[in-house]
């Protein structure tokens, strides 16, 4: 806020409070014709008369108290334009205080499980339940409430892992995130080549395909794809390159979907959570994810 608007807001705010006080002060007493009225103001409407009963005195005092409260509040907290208040209170500072308080409060709860290995945690229903709740809050949006995944988001309940399914690898994935990049080959292969390659890739998982096309595709595959997907097309977990010989398809296993993957590529992102969740929480989520496929 510029100085002008800051002053503008302050003057109006204080002016209104001052106006209220002045109004209250000036209407304390009333000028009336002596003995003019007995008990009513003289106003009648449809035969209903208005009484002329005075307000209780403490009512006035309460009004004064609210005015004083308002001024004290404006002195302590931000409210007058750019003036920060003498307490230096901000929403952010309050938020941070409360987060710090919550961390302090719940740290012992997490610390209880922090020293156990992920394998030992499998027999701790309490810890797994905590992990499950945090999974629901942080992971379920993409991986589904049950961890079964969705189109483009891996299924965490099966035994097929892009980067590996042991405890440390899962933890690394959650902590640092992953970027799975499949480069586009459409320009290199041409439309014919993409079709041949699709036929070959589909044949790997035992689907019925055009044998000639698949044979042509295999040659291209050996030249272009084995670097990531491996000689046997079984995938390379160090790179996160998927196994093409099973029937698990992250982006769908139909002819069109596989063609699309080869033609324009794919880029999957698992966000890093090291800045979002404490190590103790990641440890519990890891344990829960691990439990999904290691019953």
């Amino acid at each position, binding site marked *: 806020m510029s100085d002008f608007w800051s002053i503008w807001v302050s003057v109006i705010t204080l002016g209104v409070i001052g106006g209220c006080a002045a109004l209250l002060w000036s209407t304390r*007493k009333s000028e*009336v014709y002596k003995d*003019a009225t007995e008990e009513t103001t003289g106003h*009648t409407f449809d035969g209903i008369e208005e009484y002329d009963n005075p307000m*209780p005195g403490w009512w006035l005092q309460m009004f004064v108290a609210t005015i004083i409260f308002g001024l004290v509040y404006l002195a302590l907290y931000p409210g007058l334009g750019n003036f920060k208040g003498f307490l230096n209170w901000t929403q952010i500072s309050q938020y941070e205080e409360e987060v710090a308080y919550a961390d302090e409060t719940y740290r012992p709860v997490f610390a209880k499980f922090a020293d156990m290995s992920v394998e030992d945690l499998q027999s701790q229903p309490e810890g797994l339940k905590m992990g499950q709740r945090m999974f629901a809050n942080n992971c379920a*949006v993409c991986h*589904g*409430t049950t961890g079964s995944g969705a189109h483009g988001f891996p299924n965490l309940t*099966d035994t097929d892992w892009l980067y590996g399914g042991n405890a440390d690898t899962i933890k690394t994935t959650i902590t640092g995130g992953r970027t799975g990049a499949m480069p586009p080959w459409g320009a290199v292969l041409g439309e014919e080549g993409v079709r041949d390659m699709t036929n070959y890739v589909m044949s790997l998982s035992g689907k019925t395909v055009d044998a000639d096309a698949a044979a042509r595709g295999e040659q291209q595959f050996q030249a272009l794809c084995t670097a990531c997907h491996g000689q046997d097309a079984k995938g390379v977990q160090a790179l996160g390159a998927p196994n093409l010989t099973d*029937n698990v398809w992250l982006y769908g296993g139909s002819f069109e979907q596989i063609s699309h993957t080869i033609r324009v590529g794919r880029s999957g992102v698992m966000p890093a959570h090291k800045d979002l969740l404490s190590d103790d929480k990641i440890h519990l989520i890891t344990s829960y994810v691990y439990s999904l496929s290691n019953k």
Partner: protein
Amino acid sequence: MNQIPVKDVTPKSKNNGATESYDLYAKREHIYVKYYKGFFKNFRTISGFIMLAMFYCFSWLQWNGQQAVLFDLPNRQFHVFNFTFWPQDFILLSWLLIILAFVLFFVTVFAGRLWCGYACPQFVWTWFFIWAERVTEGDRNVRMRRDKQPMSAEKFLRKTAKHSLWLVIAAATGIAFVGYFSPIRELIPDLLAWNLGPWETWWIGFFIVATYANAGWLREQVCIYMCPYARFQSVMFDQDTLVISYDEARGENRGKRKKNMDYKAAGMGDCIDCGNCVHVCPVGIDIRDGLQYECVACGACVDACDDIMDRMGYERGLIRYTTEHALEGGTTHIMRPRLIGYFAAMCVMFIAFGYTLYARIPLEVDIIRDRGQLYIEASNGTIENAYMLKLANKSQQDHRYSIEVTGIDGLQLISESVVDIRSGELLDHPIRLQIKPAYLERPNYDIMFHVKALDDADISIDEENRFIGPTNRR
């Protein structure tokens, strides 16, 4: 559109336009309530004693090994003897409050402000404090005289005693109140060890201040200026409602007299104008001016006047519970449509409420279908749907529940189908349902989840949801 005729209502000047200024805010007149005895007072003492005893003692009762009445806000669980209510049951609270409102309407139509006179906490505590005032400072005349005197050692001592006694009652009230929200058997030792949490400290302090200020200082001001009931009760009164009334026909003309004189010959009525009915009135009105909205129908003036009538040798009931019709010499019609209507509505709601409580199943089942995707095609070709079951065990015992799903042949539940839930626990239970595509003839099916406690046949809930599959089956 006919215009409503405008009437000039400027007050007429009576003294040639001379004006004076007067304060628009009334200074409060302190009301000195006089001690008295009588039938209605005894009635209120008993009812007030019972209610105060309930308030101070109920939090000490135990039930199923826990506090019988405990409103556990942090856990959002509200224990009332055999029942544990959750936030989902708040509709019951709404109904209870509506029922109580109707009871209030019924009672008001029938007998006026019984609530105010005999049951309202504001006044129960006010009478309690008036009693404390009397035992420390003495009765009305003594108090009035002493208040006019300058401060003396005795006055200071008595005032200190009064406020100390008030604060003791207020402290007991504050602690008892907070004891319904924080278990009182732990609260008291914590308090004695000076080891209370910030919220307990704040609320106990708040209720001490509120009790002390309300019953000690504000008293009738709450009824006159703040209480909404005082404002709308007049709508429920009719000419057959019991109100406390001064029998003008019998009382006028009022006046002082000797006890054995023939006052009727002197043209006087039964009222001896002793002022007792005004002195005992806790809201400071004169009932002889007729029914006023300040009157809380406490019956103090009835008792006070009956006492005087007895002493004078006159008949009781110069001030009595009566109705407008009876005062005018007519008959009172107790059975009138308004009363019967309220009574009928009240009974219907009572029965419905009782049945709802009786039929309530202490289990909450909410099913949230996974919003991420319609269905998942697993690697072996089966179609999978994911659900999150939120199961809340609202009973006071631990239970083991089984989960079954019906609705499509060949539907398989591949998650844990038996779960243990402790009393008062809420479990998020992810569920996966799988089916071979061959079984699916339509893209979506209504399915039914059956959740039931294995050890209690009464606890069983069926909840409907949907199973969605692919539209074009290959």
